[in-house]
């Protein structure tokens, strides 16, 4: 640089811009430095954001992915006629009278038979038959009972079943439980873990993908291995259907009226201010509103997706109205003029020209509103969706009135439980929730691109 300046022709020495162009003057240097600093700040801010995202994802994926795998124990169960159908009539009512307690001995026997078959014995590991039975989830008896009620003709046969292993045995293969921790744990003994290892060697115990996590209902405190997000997903789906069916038409109609038809006076100003305020109201307030109006006043059932959907509709409406109005506003006025100029009525100009152009914005706003509603927890807890729901809601429309849970509420619910296995389940449910949100945002982008290409 110095060479260049030395060789350059002498610069003018007078005027405001005296000095060579090859040398940055003090002011320029200062401005350039400020610019460099600002870039650094920006990069740092982005970096912090990305780092936080990576940390969040690593933590959730690390904790939640194991929830999709589960340890199973395969046993051949002899469906003893003497226990299940004493009279031998195969009368379904009689079979139904046998509770899950009646099935427990069958599993115990099957476990003992399996151990014999593999040529090992309980004594080697210092476990009793009862301890061995405890290695299998308490859900197993219910599974067996469901099978027998569905197939009463199989009583007397020996059938191969794949049972869920208990939460602690499952935790042993996921690194949550170790021999040392088992010493202090009243729920599992090192002997059981050793037996589990032996079963694994013998091929009776395996770990693989668990569809049950996605399809099954929630389960009680002491059988985390059987807990699934089926009911929660269905509840969330029902609510989203309600929100979409109510919030989209109401929101779009309100926005079109306010933006295109309403006279500009203090009443519309007031409405506008209130809509903006509603968008900022904490969601729990909507929950209280829903409790007071939909449950206490209108008498709708508690824990029902219909109430959740209505509350979330109220919550989503301002978002949809604001984004719809913004996208209506962004349609150039020349299009409206053009339509009016050829003799279209106000409504024709709106529905034939303005609305199609605003559609991508409206859809994006709606999907973002829906995504927000999907992740909402607080208002649902107030209207009773935090309840423990084992039963699947029936098909719509009746199903809208059946008790159900919701994904974010299920996550909250599981994180409050004592067994560490539920933390894994909660993270797994978060992954599913995030996948849904990502899909919805992706859909918003796709729709936007697709509709924008048309003009």
């Amino acid at each position, binding site marked *: 640089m110095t060479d260049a300046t030395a060789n350059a022709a002498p610069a003018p020495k007078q005027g405001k811009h005296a000095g060579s162009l090859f040398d940055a003057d003090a002011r320029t240097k200062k401005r350039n430095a400020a610019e460099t600093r600002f870039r650094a700040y920006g990069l740092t801010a982005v970096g912090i954001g990305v780092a936080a995202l990576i940390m969040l994802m690593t933590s959730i994926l690390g904790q939640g992915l194991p929830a999709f795998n589960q340890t199973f124990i395969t046993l051949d169960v002899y469906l003893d006629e003497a226990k299940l159908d004493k009279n031998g009539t195969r009368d379904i009512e009689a079979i139904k009278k046998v509770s899950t307690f009646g099935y427990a001995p069958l599993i115990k026997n099957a476990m003992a038979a399996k151990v014999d078959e593999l040529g090992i014995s309980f004594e080697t590991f210092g476990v009793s038959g009862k301890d061995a039975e405890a290695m299998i989830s308490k859900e197993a008896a219910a599974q067996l009972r469901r099978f027998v009620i569905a197939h009463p003709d199989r009583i007397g046969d020996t059938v191969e079943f794949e049972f869920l292993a208990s939460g602690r045995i499952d935790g042993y293969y996921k690194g949550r439980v170790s021999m040392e921790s088992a010493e202090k744990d009243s729920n599992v003994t090192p002997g059981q873990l050793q037996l589990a290892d032996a079963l694994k060697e013998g091929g009776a115990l395996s770990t693989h993908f668990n569809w049950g996590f996605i399809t099954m209902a929630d389960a009680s405190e002491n059988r985390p291995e059987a807990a699934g997000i089926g009911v929660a997903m269905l509840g969330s789906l029902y609510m989203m259907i309600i929100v979409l069916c109510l919030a989209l038409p109401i929101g779009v109609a309100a926005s079109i009226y306010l933006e295109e038809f309403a006279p500009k006076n203090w009443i519309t100003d007031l409405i506008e201010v209130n809509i903006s305020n509603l968008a900022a109201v904490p969601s729990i307030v909507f929950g209280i509103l829903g409790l007071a109006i939909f449950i206490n006043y209108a008498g709708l059932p508690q824990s029902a997706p219909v109430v959740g959907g209505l509350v979330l509709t109220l919550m989503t409406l301002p978002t949809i109205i604001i984004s719809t109005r913004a996208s209506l506003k962004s349609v150039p006025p*020349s299009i409206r003029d053009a339509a009016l*100029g*050829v003799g279209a009525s106000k409504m024709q100009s709106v529905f034939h020209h303005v609305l199609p152009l605003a559609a991508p914005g409206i859809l994006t706003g709606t999907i973002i509103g829906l995504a927000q509603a999907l992740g909402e927890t607080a208002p649902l807890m107030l209207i009773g969706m935090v309840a423990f729901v084992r039963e699947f809601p029936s098909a719509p429309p009746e199903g809208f009135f059946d008790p159900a849970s919701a994904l974010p509420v299920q996550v909250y619910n599981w994180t409050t439980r004592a067994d560490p296995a539920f933390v894994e389940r909660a993270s797994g449910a978060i992954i599913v929730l995030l996948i849904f949100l990502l899909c919805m945002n992706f859909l918003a982008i796709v729709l936007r691109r697709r509709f924008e290409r048309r003009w």
Partner: protein
Amino acid sequence: MNDMRPVERSVDTKEIKFECSDVQVYYGATHAIKDVNVTLEDKTVTAFIGPSGCGKSTFLRCLNRMNDTIDICRVTGNLLLDGEDIYDKRVDPVQLRAKVGMVFQKPNPFPKSIYDNIAYGPRIHGLAKNKAELDEIVEKSLRRGAIWDEVKDRLDAPGTGLSGGQQQRLCIARAIATEPEVLLMDEPCSALDPIATAQVEELIDELRENYSVVIVTHSMQQAARVSQKTAFFHLGNLVEFGETGKIFTNPRDPRTESYITGRIG
């Protein structure tokens, strides 16, 4: 009928389309148009000239009640189209605009195909009974808009993909398609290059055979080229109105003279 009344100027032999008297326009508290009296003839191009903000566009937009879309705008006075007051309570502005078409300053084709751009007006007014008739209207309008040869092979292409001059001719064709009686043009060439401008001017001259055309322009040369009558607006007043030749060669008002010689405006 007012048309039957003997007109004052002896040169006038054509039918009167628009008769406006004592027209006042207010934007809120601003008095934008003051006491305008003007008659617009059929099969004539009338040019409105004047400096920016003089009210010529505002007055033009009164003629098909486009000002109705502006909340604070208020129009008083008599604007008679074929003897009927267009601001009468019984008049539906939508019906009026089908009769008085408009072309805007910036070409504003709909973001649809060329065909749909032209067909939109006839469709909403029910001018075509079937597809064949609609096709015919579209072709006829595009031919009259002097753009048929350029677009006949790509009627399905979006109207927004045409060049500026083509877009403006498309907009003119769109305005013609609804078969208006009066065509209002608000600076139709201000966004066009000289070649496109020449094409549009030629087109305006052809349109004179069938329509009463009113054109607002900033270019005095354009006014001189295309119009038979010229109205000069200044600060909301109609200063002078008469034969284009007279206005440009022998203006009566000193303000007109100052403007056309470039001293004000």
